[in-house]
């Protein structure tokens, strides 16, 4: 029974983190899959969302600016707005240039955001980061939430204390996972709607043949900036959810471009760029592989130590993570060369019938 619970909680955490990554892949799909915009600064947009949410919702702290103790939903909306604003600035500057320049600019902006988060210690607490970020559902069991409206309206402080003491410690976990899955579903529905709308079809036209779209009177630059902002807004939202999930964020380790930006790219390309279902599938699939391979490697190392007691596994332990990164990089290269469409190839809404046309490769 204990172990069953353990497995259940593991699945919950897989669904939670996988869901957050699925959201990131959906955001990237709006930029790359819809519009062919090459964004390699995902970590930057996630960091903006995460820090905005964290600063606005945490309790007052002498370590960083605020905590403004705003409602969680306000923090999430603000995270989306700030991330979108930064994307708008970059978009206006870089989108008229070729995709390589956008790539360089986005990788740059991600680094600059990190620099700011690291150096502005008055606002962000610098490299030590922000902790005790309120997590949806779990936050109800914190005193500052159950002692205030709306919970204080239902019961008083001792009543809530007794109520939460009676619950198992993991009570919030299923609710949190379900909330994230719901978010993924809602974002998916909205993006599907966008994709099938005239706007989405115009995006495809621009991506496939920019000159023809321009000749047909479409505002190519404007549409691209819109898609870029849309993706960044979703990434900012995912950043807010990520900061809830982690509860402690810092500029360097949390927003490591290898684990943020690169992993999301692998997810989208493996799942199928241009296909929202593919993005979600890629998110959950790659996250599961990523997380399971960690268990597998740790298990193997433990096995070695039980049989060969003298073995020095310190080096193995520190380097296994890099080996994992190397392997996932090779997965990307193989998919890119052999099956660039991904598992679920893009299907065109405009095509008659439900034949999924070969979507071709994007960009340029």
């Amino acid at each position, binding site marked *: 029974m204990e172990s069953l619970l353990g497995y259940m909680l593991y699945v919950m955490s897989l669904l939670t983190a996988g869901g957050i990554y699925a959201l990131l892949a959906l955001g990237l799909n709006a930029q790359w899959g819809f519009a*062919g915009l*090459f964004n*390699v600064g995902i970590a930057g947009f996630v960091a903006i969302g995460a820090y905005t949410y964290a600063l606005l919702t945490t309790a007052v702290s002498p370590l960083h600016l605020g905590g403004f103790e705003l409602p969680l939903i306000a923090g999430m909306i603000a995270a989306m707005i700030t991330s979108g604003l930064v994307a708008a600035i970059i978009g206006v*500057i*870089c989108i008229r*240039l*070729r*995709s*390589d*320049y956008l*790539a*360089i*600019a986005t*990788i*740059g*902006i991600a*680094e*600059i955001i990190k*620099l700011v988060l*690291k*150096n502005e210690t008055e606002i962000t607490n610098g490299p030590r980061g922000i902790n005790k970020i309120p997590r949806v559902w779990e936050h109800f069991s914190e005193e500052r939430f159950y002692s205030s409206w709306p919970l204080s309206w239902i019961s008083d402080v001792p009543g809530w204390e007794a109520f939460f003491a009676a619950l198992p410690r993991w009570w919030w976990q299923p609710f949190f996972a379900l909330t994230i899955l719901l978010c993924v579903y809602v974002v998916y529905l909205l993006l599907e709607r966008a994709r099938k709308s005239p706007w989405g079809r115009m995006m495809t036209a621009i991506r496939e043949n920019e000159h023809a779209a321009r000749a047909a009177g479409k505002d190519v630059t404007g549409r691209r900036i819109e898609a870029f902002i849309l993706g960044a807004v979703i990434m900012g939202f995912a950043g807010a959810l990520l900061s809830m999930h982690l509860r402690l964020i810092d500029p360097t380790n949390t927003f490591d471009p*290898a684990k943020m930006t*690169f992993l999301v*790219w692998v997810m989208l*390309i493996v799942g199928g760029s241009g296909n929202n279902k593919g993005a979600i599938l890629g998110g959950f699939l790659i996250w599961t592989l990523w997380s399971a391979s960690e268990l597998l490697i740790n298990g193997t190392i433990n096995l070695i130590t039980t049989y060969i007691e003298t073995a020095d596994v310190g*080096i193995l332990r*520190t*380097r296994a993570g*890099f*080996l994992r*990164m*190397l392997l996932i*990089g*090779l997965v*990307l*290269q193989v998919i*890119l*060369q052999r099956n*660039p469409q991904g598992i679920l190839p893009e299907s065109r809404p405009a095509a008659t019938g439900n034949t999924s046309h070969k979507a071709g*490769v*994007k*960009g*340029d």
Partner: protein
Amino acid sequence: MWMDFGFEFVNFYLVPGLVLGCIYALGAVGITLTFGILRFANFAHGELMMTGTYLAWTFGAVVLATTGVVLHPLITAIPAMAGAVVLALLIDRYFYKPFRDAPTIMVVIASFGMMLIVRSAVQVIWGPNQIAFVRGIDKPNAAVREFTQSIDMMLLIPNKHFWIIGGTIVIVLLLHYLLEHTRIGKAMRAVSDSPDLARVTGINVEVVVRATWIVGGMSAVMAGVFLAMDTQTLETTMGFRMLLPMFAAAILGGIGRPFGAVFGGLVIGLAEELVAYPWIGTEPLISPGYKTGVAFAIMVVMLIVRPSGIFKGRTF
């Protein structure tokens, strides 16, 4: 006058800025050549540089362990260059060549993947921790100090800085000779200007591509070794940290313009060091923590004002 202003400015800002600029310049040459000839932004260039520097250190360490001879870093750079060139050619053959006829963005994604693959491989082999590249403190060159002191303009320049600046001048001259006076160099410039026209005139583009990797790989290793000589440490993140200033230098000088990249590198290096000088009051103008931001800011301004760069390079 000299002691009030010049001493600090020249020794602690101008010379380090020039040294950093030389390192960026050599790195940016490779970026701008691959960008101009293969037509894509190679994100793995910094990692090529980093790997080459690790190879140089390994060669030096092996020689030290077997024969007890301490080699100068510039000597260890020679076999490292060979290794890095082989690595660059292998990467090109197996990861970039399949996308030669595909839209360029595919190969940019591939290079982005290679960046992480190469870095992870180095971290698996050598471990993620810092390694001391050169031990001991490099004291300022005594002859230069005494001479300049006698004319009341004391310069404190360590030998390593002479090596870096002198080495860069030699390499840039060699590069100039290669590009302006040799057959392959002229072919490289022709392909950079117009690949179709070059092909029609009978230039073997694949040979030019290989030559580009050789030149780019060698200059990248030299940049990496110079950087490691300057900081005296090796880190697996050194390539990634160099990437943005190198791109900024290449864009500033104009894509496909190697000497533009050299100029751009010097400008970026000087700018990064000089912004920390207390131009107004006694505080640094911009906190040294934001050095990387300077390169980025210059790049963004260039992209807005003149995306073709100072020397009218290529825009895509």
